[in-house]
């Protein structure tokens, strides 16, 4: 009786899981092998897996989108983790004003993405933006931040770094604060310099937190949409086209529901593969 209740008590969770996760995934799977068109106000489904696969194979924008996404994730997350770590170590060493520093640091996370996009778009404006005004004031040439294929992606990554460093900082700062002071003290008594303490004592102890920050930020960076949509919409050319932005265009602008679903599955598979590989890389060292 007790055992059966234990099993039945799981039912609400199972129902919720099926309704909110399994059903949407199965539906996505079904959509991915179909063409969905509307006639007479009613959706007509046709089983066309080959057609959707042909669309995937012939999608000329997908390749640059995947390449840009890989670059965006790698460069963005690396910079965010490095800066977040440095900030966490720096703030942790402050004798006064830690709380204020922490509050100020997290402000970028609180700004709505639309406001971030608009704000940075204004700052990057070729003619009126603060960056170019500063450059011109220093007798330097203005930079075509969002209109040059060689600069635009870097400009978008910079915004992402500004936006998400505080998130990494928060995770790592909590971890730094959690390091027992006597371990640091012992290292100091043993004659370790501050750099040695950071490299040999603190960073190894921060590895689990680093792993969490990397995995979380990696997943979120893969899904970045709002910043790039507002700043460049993927242009100029395909220089800032990211996978999620491309997916949006296929689904919502081109209204290709079947192919959009297939593309979603391909991206989910891609993210999962990257996660598995990164987990393998992290697990032996006890990071995840």
């Amino acid at each position, binding site marked *: 009786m007790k055992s059966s209740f234990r099993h039945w008590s799981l039912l609400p969770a199972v129902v919720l899981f099926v309704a909110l996760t399994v059903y949407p995934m199965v539906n996505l799977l079904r959509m991915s092998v179909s063409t969905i068109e509307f006639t007479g106000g009613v959706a007509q489904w046709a089983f066309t897996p080959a057609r959707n696969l042909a669309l995937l194979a012939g999608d000329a924008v997908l390749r640059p989108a995947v390449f840009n996404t890989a670059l965006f994730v790698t460069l963005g997350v690396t910079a965010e983790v490095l800066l977040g770590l440095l900030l966490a170590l720096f703030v942790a060493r402050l004798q006064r004003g830690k709380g204020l520093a922490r509050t100020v640091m997290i402000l970028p996370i609180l700004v709505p993405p639309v406001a971030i996009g608009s704000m940075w778009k204004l700052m990057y404006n070729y003619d009126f933006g603060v960056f170019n005004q500063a450059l011109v004031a220093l007798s330097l040439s203005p930079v075509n931040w969002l209109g040059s294929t060689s600069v635009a992606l870097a400009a978008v990554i910079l915004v992402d770094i500004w936006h998400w460093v505080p998130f990494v900082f928060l995770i790592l700062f909590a971890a730094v604060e959690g390091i027992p002071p006597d371990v640091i003290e012992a290292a100091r008594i043993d004659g370790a310099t501050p750099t040695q303490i950071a490299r040999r004592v603190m960073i190894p102890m921060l590895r689990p937190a680093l792993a969490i920050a990397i995995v979380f930020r990696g997943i979120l960076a893969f899904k970045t949409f709002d910043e790039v949509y507002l700043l460049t919409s993927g*242009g*100029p050319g395909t220089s800032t086209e990211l996978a999620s932005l491309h997916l949006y265009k296929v689904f919502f602008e081109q209204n290709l529901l079947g192919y959009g679903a297939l593309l979603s599955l391909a991206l989910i598979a891609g993210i999962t593969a990257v996660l598995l590989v990164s987990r393998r890389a992290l697990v032996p060292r006890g990071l995840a």
Partner: protein
Amino acid sequence: MRKLVLVMHTLAWAFACLLAATPANAQQAFADVGKQPPITILINSSPWYGGFEKTVELYEKQTGNKVKLDTTPYNGVLEKARNAVRGDKSPYDLINLDTQWTIEFYEGGFLTPLKDIDPTFDLPKEVLTYGDSGYWNAAKRWRTPSGGKLMAWSPNGNVDLFLYREDMLKEAGLVPPKTWSDVLASCTKLQDPPKRYAVAIRGERGNGIRFEWMFFMLGQGASVVKDAENGDYTVTINSPQAKAALDLFIDVQKRCGPPNAGALGQGDVIQLLATGKAAQAMVVSAAWANFDDPTKSAVVGKIMAVPVPAPVGGKPPALLGNWNMAVPKNIPEAQKKAALAFSRWFLTAGAQRAYAEAGSIPVRSDTFQELGSNPRFRWMPAYLAMQTYAVQELGYAEGAQVEQVLGLRLNQALIGEMSSGKALNTAAKEIEEIFRKNGRRTGSLPPLPE
């Protein structure tokens, strides 16, 4: 004798005024639509929205009928409209659709033909039909009144105008351009970057560059497909005429525009003109109100409008970018009638005059004629002239996909990632593939030299 002449003159003038006033007075009439249930309209928050809102307020005041507006940014309107018509019951009684989206809604069978609601309903003859985008011939899969049903009416018809700074052109001894050669010639005098750009034209990837370039394309007599209306989807975008149009577009942008032309969007172009950094610009008519508003503009009263120039020896080009107000199929009959009652009222001369005076673009030719001589509406003659040859483009189910292709390839040519020949050949191949996959009769021209 002089006295007699004076009296005759005065009488003639008074008679002329009386004649002129008669139709004007007749146009003041508003439709009496009676008591109607409240309706909800899905509307975009575009630059002309303020005028629409004020006109709706006037409707409520005059008729006592209630209208709720769901004001939504451009990018959100399409998804809200899709969700509304695909559900059991639409929360909206009127939905406003960009002309490019209408095919999806017509073909999907989501809308009620307006004569199905009231067989006596028809658009007044003065109402502009904007390339007949409100009609749908289901058998032909084409927007045409010939064999088609009236599905929607336009609350706004955008067309690009060529705006210029009257003072700057005068100072430089220039007259408003009629051809792109005039524009290029003016650039030698007006282009002074980064202080001043001779011309600002949208070049950003996507709808921006696709829409603007098509004025050049139409001017050169080029087309995307051979004869879509009659089912011939042979892709002709890589014709020598299209290449000439693209080369001219790039030439104008490089010689006369800002260095970031490839990233210029609508807001940027408006900003450059409104701040006095651009001497001329191609801008949608809906943006006009920005330039005479002292809170938004440093160039109040200095901007004038002419039709968009044509290439030398080419055709005067005009591409429509209008909106279409339609009644969803999935609402009760009483709501459909109320939506149609609002439509009938909105299209009267009186409502259209109020609409124009509130800062929007009217959709009746007589309103343009009535207000065109008023300096406040000095853009109207250019707008009305362009309406005589304005056309719709991409009026087929694959329009959104074709726009994505063109928006990317044209932008790549502009920023120098591809030659114009390669960009058009690539676009032609991709567009042909889209049509082929949809079972259209298609083909393409021999490739251009790259």
